């Protein structure tokens, strides 16, 4: 396994704001805490595949459209 640190950006904040949802509300819908939503939005936590799928299904989009692999960190 590569030891390079990969940065995965995401558009969760933009998607949530576009729907007019608070972190608390989105967390409740997805079955996670407000802090977890905040951590994902800030890029401090990468969600598991099941949670990523729940997020994309909720917003009617795809994984690739929400999460962006910027490659290894320099």
């Amino acid at each position, binding site marked *: 396994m590569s030891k390079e640190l990969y940065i995965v950006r995401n558009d969760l904040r933009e998607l949530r704001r576009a729907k007019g949802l608070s972190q608390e509300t989105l967390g409740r819908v*997805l*079955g*996670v*805490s407000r*802090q*977890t939503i905040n*951590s994902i939005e800030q890029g401090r*936590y990468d*969600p*598991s*595949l*099941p*949670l990523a799928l*729940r997020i994309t299904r909720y917003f009617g989009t795809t994984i690739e459209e929400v999460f962006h692999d910027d490659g290894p960190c320099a």
Partner: protein
Amino acid sequence: MTTDHAPDTARRQRWLVPAFCLLAGVGYVVIFLIRHEPWMALIGFVIMAGYGLVLVLTSRRSETAALLRGELTDERRLDINRRASSFTLNVLILVAVGGFVISLLQGHDGNPWILICAVAGTTYLASIAYFARRG
């Protein structure tokens, strides 16, 4: 990987640690009353029940308190709990190995450190084998 818990399980989890604190407080009362130390019984109860109460009162505002309260309600919190447990275990192993070496240097037989190290080593080995098979 499961990402969340059923509401009922989460509700039960929220009260497990406070209930344990209260029970431990009552345990202190019983033990110290048997030893005829009423002040220690009172202090023990206040510390344990107080800790449980602080967790209940602060867990909505503080995620640290929520985690200490046992609210492992989603995958990130479970991950935090796993990492904290792993870090704690590493520190304990370091202390046990250090204790064993110091005990030998002092001319003792290494007990009970050697026993703790043996249990930790065997458990780690068995866990690795189990989780490697489980995938």
